[in-house]
C-alpha cells in the first residue's frame, strides 16, 4: 500500500489527480478501522494531516463560516459551538474523547455513511461542501446533493473535500440521536432541526434511517407554514405531532442489528417533536429576553 503525504493543498490535489484511487485519510477513525478489519485494501492512502489549510476556520465576506475539512470534532465543540450549535451537538455524540480529538467532518463526508453524525445538522443548516480538483478547481455542492447512496458521495475521483461552508445559526438548532448506550454509540437513527426565523423557514436532517442522510422536506414545508413566526405563540400540540408524523414519513429505514425499522420511525417522530419543542421554546425565550 502506497502512502502519500503531501504538505500543501496544491500537492494534495496533484496527488489525488495522479492517483485517483488513493483513499484520503485525516483522523483515521474510520479508515483505519476498516483497514484493520480488512474491509478495504485501498491501493494508496493520501494522508492529509500535514496540509495546514485544512485545519483552518475562516469567515467569508458574507458571514458564512468556512470550516476546513480537517477541523476535528473537538474544535467544532469548543470553538464553534456558539455559532454552529447543531453541528456541535452532533459532534459531541461522536465516539469517545479520543475519537473526537482525531475525527473530522471532512472524514464523515468522505465516508458518507448514512449513520454519520454530522450529516443531519449539515442538511438542516443548508451547508455546502466545497470540493476541489486540480483540473477543474472549486466546486460547491449543497449537502442535500452530496449524499448519493450508502457510503457513496458526489465527489469525483480526482476531487478532495476542502471545507464545509455553513452559515452561523440564525435561530435555535438541536440534534438528537438514538443509541442503545448512553455514549460512544453509532446512531440507530438521528435527527437535526434548525429554525431560520429570518426566512421563516425550518431545516431538518434525518440520519441513519434511509440509504442516505436526507431532509424531511414535507415536514419542513408544513412547519415553516404553520409556525407562528411573528407572534411567537406557544407551539400547538397538534402541529408538533404532525411534524413528527411527517418526519417519520420521510424516513425509509430498514431492520438491522442496531434496531428495527418500526422503532426507528417511531423514534424519529418523538425526536422531531421534542427537538422542535426545545427549539421553539428557545425562539420564544429570545423574544422575551429582547422585549
Amino acid at each position, binding site marked *: 500500500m502506497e502512502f502519500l503525504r503531501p504538505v500543501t493543498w496544491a500537492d494534495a490535489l496533484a496527488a489525488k489527480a495522479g492517483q485517483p484511487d488513493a483513499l484520503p485519510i485525516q483522523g483515521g477513525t474510520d479508515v483505519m478501522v476498516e483497514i484493520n478489519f480488512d474491509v478495504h485494501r485501498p491501493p494508496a492512502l493520501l494522508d492529509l494531516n500535514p496540509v495546514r489549510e485544512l485545519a483552518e476556520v475562516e469567515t467569508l465576506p458574507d458571514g458564512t463560516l468556512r470550516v476546513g475539512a480537517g477541523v476535528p470534532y473537538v474544535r467544532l465543540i469548543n470553538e464553534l459551538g456558539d455559532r454552529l450549535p447543531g453541528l456541535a451537538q452532533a459532534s459531541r455524540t461522536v465516539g469517545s474523547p479520543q475519537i473526537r480529538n482525531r475525527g473530522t467532518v471532512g472524514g464523515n463526508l468522505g465516508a458518507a455513511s448514512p449513520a454519520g453524525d454530522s450529516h443531519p445538522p449539515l442538511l438542516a443548516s443548508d451547508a455546502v461542501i466545497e470540493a476541489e480538483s486540480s483540473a477543474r478547481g472549486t466546486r460547491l455542492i449543497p449537502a442535500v446533493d452530496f449524499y448519493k447512496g450508502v457510503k457513496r458521495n458526489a465527489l469525483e475521483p480526482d476531487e478532495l473535500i476542502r471545507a464545509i461552508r455553513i452559515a452561523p445559526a440564525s435561530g435555535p438548532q438541536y440534534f438528537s440521536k438514538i443509541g*442503545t448506550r448512553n*455514549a460512544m454509540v453509532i446512531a440507530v437513527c438521528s435527527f437535526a432541526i434548525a429554525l431560520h426565523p429570518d426566512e421563516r423557514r425550518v431545516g431538518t436532517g434525518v440520519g441513519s434511517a434511509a440509504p442516505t442522510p436526507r431532509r424531511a422536506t414535507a415536514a419542513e414545508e408544513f412547519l415553516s407554514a404553520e409556525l407562528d413566526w411573528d407572534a411567537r405563540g406557544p407551539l400547538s400540540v397538534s402541529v408538533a405531532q404532525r411534524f413528527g408524523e411527517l418526519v417519520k414519513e420521510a424516513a425509509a429505514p430498514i431492520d438491522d*442489528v442496531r434496531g428495527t425499522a418500526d422503532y426507528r420511525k417511531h423514534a424519529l417522530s418523538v425526536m422531531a417533536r421534542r427537538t422542535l419543542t426545545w427549539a421553539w421554546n428557545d425562539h420564544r425565550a429570545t423574544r422575551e429576553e429582547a422585549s
Partner: protein
Amino acid sequence: MRPENRTSSTAPRNQAPIKSPGHVAAHVGPEGRGRVGDSPLRPDGTLKVAGEFAYSSDLWIDGMLWGATLRSPHPRALIRSLDIAPALAVPGVVAVLTHEDVPGVKFFGHDGTLDQPVLAIDQVRHQGEPIALVAADHPETARRAMEKIAIEFEVLEPVTDARAVIADPERHKVQPLGGITRHQPVRVGDVDAARAQAEVVVSGDFEVGMQDQAFLGPESGLAMPSEDGGIDLYVSTQWMHNDLEQIAPCLGLPEERIHMTLAGVGGAFGGREDLSMQIHAGMLALHTGKPVKMSYNRYESFFGHVHRHPASMHYEYGATADGKILYAEVEIVLDGGAYTSSTLNVTGNAASLGVGPYEIPNIRIDAYGVYTNNPPCGAMRGFGAVQACFAYESMMDRLAAATGLSPVEVRRRNAVSQGSKLATGQVIESPAPLADMLTRLEAMPLPPAADTSDIRNLPGGASQTTHGEGVVRGIGYGVGIKNICFSEGFDDLSTARVRLEVIGGEATVLVHTAAAEVGQGLVTLQAQIARSELGVRKVTIAPADTTVGDAGSTSASRQSYMSGGAVQKACHAVRDELLAMAERKFGSTYGQLYLDDGYVVSRWNGIVGPIEKVLGEDVIEATREFHHRPTQKMDPETGQGNSHTQLALCVHRAVVDVDTELGLVKVVEMAAVQDVGKILNRLSLEGQIHGGSAQGLGLAVMEEIVVAGGLVRNPSFTDYLIPTILDMPPMRLDILEHPDPDAPYGLRGAGEPPTLSSTPAIVAAVRDATGKALTRVPVRPEHIVA
C-alpha cells in the same frame, strides 16, 4: 501478569522472546505493607492505566513467524475439497496446515469430552470453526495467503433451534454426541399435590440472549520450539495445567516437554477456559521449527472463544396467599452450540441453582444443554447461574405482584438461611443471612431525582434524546446465589510453592503458583497472605508457569479460596520449618516458639531474633496442595446431592430512569449487599463487585451477540455494546463478613455473585418504570416502546 512473569529468580528458561515494555521487578505493592485485610495497590494497575502493561499480544522475538487461522464462513457444511497449494505458493508463506497435520490426537475438549476437532475434519459445525493454519513471515502475508486456500463446501441447513433439538434429538444431531448434551432433572417433594394446594399461581417464559465475555485482550500468544524437542508456550489463559492436558496429546508430546508460561492476560471472564490458538501455534512452531506468534483481531476474537449460553426458560410457581412458595416447576434450555465445552457443568449449575436461594418444598426442574450449529457456548462469569437468576427473580416479582407483597418482602418470606436446604437437598452449613441482607438493602438511602440540567444524567445521555420528557423512575431488586469452586465431585486443587531466604540481608519470600492472574488481583493477594503468615515485608511473586503444580482454574470465584488457601498452607509449612530450625539452632530452652512481625518469639523468653538471624544462609522451601471439601455429583434422576463446596449471596437494588417514549434506560444507581466472609483486600473486592455489576448491567440492557441462522451479526465492538462509564452508575456497597469456617480466613468467593443479581434488579426497575413484562434480556428499546 506480564511484569511479574518476566523477571524473577524463576524466570522462564528462555527470556529472549520478551521484547516489550514492562520489564519491572515483581515486588507486589509497596514493600512491607499490605497484609490480609489491607488494600495494597496492584502492581499492574499503573502500567495498565499508562498503556505500558505487556499483554500476550505484545510478545515478540526476532525471526518469529505469524500464524493465521482460516475459519468457516458457514454454520454447517461439508468440506468437499480443500486445496492449500495456492496459499503455499505465496512468497513469505512457510507452512499451511490442516487436520491431516495434527501430530497427535485430533480432538480436544473439557471434562474428558474430546469432541472438538483441532482443525475441521471434512465438515464444519459452526461459523468460525478453524479449518486450516498458515504461518508466514508477516501477519498480512499469512492473512492473504489464507484467503487463497480453495475450499468447496456443501452447505447444509443449520440446526439453530435448541427447543427443536429437545423435541427430536435424533433428528437434530449436529455431531456424534448429540442431540442433548445433558439433561439434569431436580425432583423434590410432590409438585402435583402442591399445585392443588396453591392459592396463587404465577408463570412465565423468559429468555437470555448470548452474552460475550468481551475481554479487551484478544486471544494471542507465542509458541517456540524448545531444545528438548518440545514447545515453550507463552499464552493468556485461565488454567495452564488444563490447557496442557489438552494440548499435549494433540501435539503428540508428553506433558513435560510442553513448558507453559502465563503471558499478560487482558481479561478472561470464562472466555479463556477453552483453548483458542494454543495447539495451532504449537503445531506451526513444531512444523516450521521457528517461533510462531498468533494474535486474533477483534473480529476473529468473537469467533475465537465460547460465549454465555443463551437460555429459553419456562417457570411456574404456586404459593400461599401470603406469598410462601409451595412449588416450582421449571424448564431451562441452554444452547451450547456445536461442541461440548463446559455445557455439562453449566447445565448442572442451572439445575442445582435453578430456583435460587429460596426455600421451596416441592420442585420439578428439567435443565437441558443441547448441541446446535450456533456459536459454541461455555464458561462465562456466573456459569449457568446467571440465566436461571434472571428467570427466578422475574418470578419473585410476579409473585409479589400476585400476592400484593413488596418485592423485598416476598423474597424475605422465602429466603434461605443457614441450615436451609437447596433444591439439591444440600444443607447450607455456613451463614446465609439473605433476609437480613434484603432488609439492609431496602434501608439504604435512595438517590435524588436526576439533575436534568445535564443531559448526561438522563436516558440517552450525550445523545440528547430528552430534556426530561417521558422519563419515569423505577426501582427493582435482585437476589442471586452462586456456587464457589468447582462442583459435583471435582477435586480442583491448588498448589503453591513458598520459599524463604535471606537476600541482601533481608528475609525475602518467593511465592510460586500456576494460578492465572487475569486482572482479578490474585498476585496482590498472594503477597498479602505471605506477609500475613510469615511477617516478612519483602515478597516476590514468581511468574505463573507449569514448573510448579496445578493451581486449578481462575474461574468459579475460586482463586482466593483455593490458591489463597494453598499459599497460606505452604506458608504455614515454611513457618513450622523455620521455628523448628530456630529450635535446632538455638536449643530447646526457649520453649514454644511463634512468628511475630518478622521475629521468632518464645512464649517464655521473648524475642529469639529476627527471621534473618534464624535463617542465616539456609533456605526453606515448601510446596503444598490445597483441597476444598469433597462434593458429590448430582443424582442423574433427582438432582439430589451435596454438589457444591461453598455458596455465595449477593443482592442488588437498581434505580433507573427510563425514557418511556423512546425506550432508553439510564441506570441511576445500583446498591449491593454481599457477604464475602472476610474482606481480604477491600479495594480489589469493591472492584470485583463494581465490575460484576457492570457486566450484569450489560446483559440487562445492551450486551448480546445477535445470531441469525447460525451467523453472528455483530462481531465488533461497534455493534456488540458494553457499558461505558456513562452507563455504569455509582454504587452503594454494604459488604458483610460472616465467616465460612471451612474456608481460608473464612472467606467467600466474590467475583461472580454480583454478576447474577444486578441483571434482574435492573430489569425489575425498568418494569417498575414502564409496566412492561420484559421477559427477555438484554431489554431493547423496541421492547419498551412496543
